């Protein structure tokens, strides 16, 4: 099967400091790839560079569209980049407050992307919004409530609903469960796993939590100081780490 996303020798620097260096990988349709590593290892930088939110210094990112055509992201115009982000991609941020529009209701948050795609039928928008709230386990009766009145876990689920409502093919997630307590994390991971399976999404997820990778991802990439030090099947990496840094990561996980 042909890949959905091809990343080749991607590098990005913040002045003298390395953001990420010489990263290459392929992502296939329906696959969930986890990028793990400690804080400052370049995970989020890589994610943002791949999602065309940052401009890489070198390397290329190619994406295969619905119609089978390959797009070189660096060569895209701003308009095309936005169209892609709107129609085919989704981005879930770590802090739901960054990804949500806080001054409008939950329903409007979910419906916004649909309206951006040109849907102009209020009852349909409403119905879809309420359906998606239900899918992310938010009581649909709260459709007109402000997201600020939601708990952190609910806000994160709302952001997921808002992102997935347009049925994107590829979703980027930046530590979607960080900052939530363990039981809420578990519910969201469960939800993500189910939705990713049901919708057949491809996803790149950044996390510092190896348990998250174990639960969700078939494949995992380990980063240190901006470079990928090890990549492979998640179980293989976690059970039989080869690189010293990965061994350190795996051994530093608390086991009860």
């Amino acid at each position, binding site marked *: 099967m042909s890949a959905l996303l091809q990343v080749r020798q991607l590098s990005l620097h913040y002045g003298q400091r390395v953001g990420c260096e010489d990263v290459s990988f392929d992502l296939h349709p329906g696959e969930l790839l986890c990028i793990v590593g400690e804080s400052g290892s370049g995970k989020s930088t890589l994610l943002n560079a791949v999602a065309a939110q940052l401009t890489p210094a070198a390397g290329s990112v190619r994406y295969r569209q619905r119609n089978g055509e390959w797009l070189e992201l660096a060569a895209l115009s*701003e*308009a095309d980049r*936005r169209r892609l982000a709107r129609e085919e991609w989704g981005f879930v941020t770590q802090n739901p407050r960054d990804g949500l*529009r806080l*001054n*409008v*209701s939950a*329903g*409007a948050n979910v*419906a*916004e*992307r649909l*309206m*951006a*795609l*040109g849907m*102009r*039928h*209020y*009852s349909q*928008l*409403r119905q879809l919004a309420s359906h998606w709230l239900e899918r992310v386990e938010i009581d649909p009766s709260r*459709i*007109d409530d402000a997201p600020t009145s939601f708990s952190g876990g609910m806000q994160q689920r709302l952001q997921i609903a808002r992102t997935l409502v347009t049925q994107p093919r590829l979703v980027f997630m930046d530590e979607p469960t960080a900052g939530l307590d363990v039981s809420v994390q578990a519910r969201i991971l469960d939800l993500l796993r189910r939705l990713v399976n049901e919708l057949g999404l491809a996803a790149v997820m950044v996390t510092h939590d190896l348990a998250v990778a174990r639960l969700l991802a078939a494949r995992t990439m380990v980063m240190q100081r901006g470079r990928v030090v090890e990549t492979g099947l998640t179980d293989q990496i976690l059970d039989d780490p080869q690189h010293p840094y990965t061994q350190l990561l795996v051994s530093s996980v608390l086991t009860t």
Partner: protein
Amino acid sequence: MTPHYNFAFLDEDTKRMLRRALLKAVAIPGYQVPFGSREMPLPYGWGTGGIQVTAALLGPDDVLKVIDQGADDTTNAVNIRRFFSRVAGVATTEHTADATLIQTRHRIPETSLREDQILVFQVPEPEPLRTLEAREAETRTLHALADYGLMHVKLYEDIAQYGHIATSYDYPVLVDGRFLTSPSPIPKFDNPKLDRSPALMLFGAGREKRLYAIPPYTRVESLAFDDHPFELQRWEQQCELCGSGESYLDEVVVDDRGTRMFVCSDTDYCHGRRAEAAA
């Protein structure tokens, strides 16, 4: 006319700059053109943008009408009219039909406008997306890409909260099928008058330093949802002075016991109808 000022207060170079910006605005209907807004001898919010546009357009033969909320005799209207009769010595009128240039705040006259008339609007906030997107760079990008889904988020919120589109003034319009535009805070009752109007419509925002235009006979469409179409407000009452059932009515409290009356907001229209009835 006070001799200490150049004709129409502004110096010729400033007027020229304004005219160039206005030409650009007319060339790109609904596009907000930046201009070098000047300090005017009245505060922001009192129509500095409209006054600068009027000053740039006035010629000695023009007949100026100024209205505020439809009325010729309110403070803002009286002041601006007197200002131009002093610094430009132009003739002024209260009759819509006699005016060549009409500066307005918050209304479009009820009397149909003609091709030889220009309507100048005072605009407090030229950016219709501003309440939803605070960043100017972002709203400009959205305009450039005609990416206007955001505006419907506001209308969605209206329906979700009130059961109908509750925005009743400054109701967003799409000009010539391209630029999302604020019609200035006119009641949405006046929105249909913008569509294919024979008169040139110019908009000036002094504080925000933006001009834009709706050229004559340009298509102007009020945004809506398929199942919640654009609707005009209606009154059960008629104007108590002239009996009009078609004009935009103001509700006026007339005593301390809460007695109300409904009267036309367009004073010239109301006077005209009463004079007609008396004749």
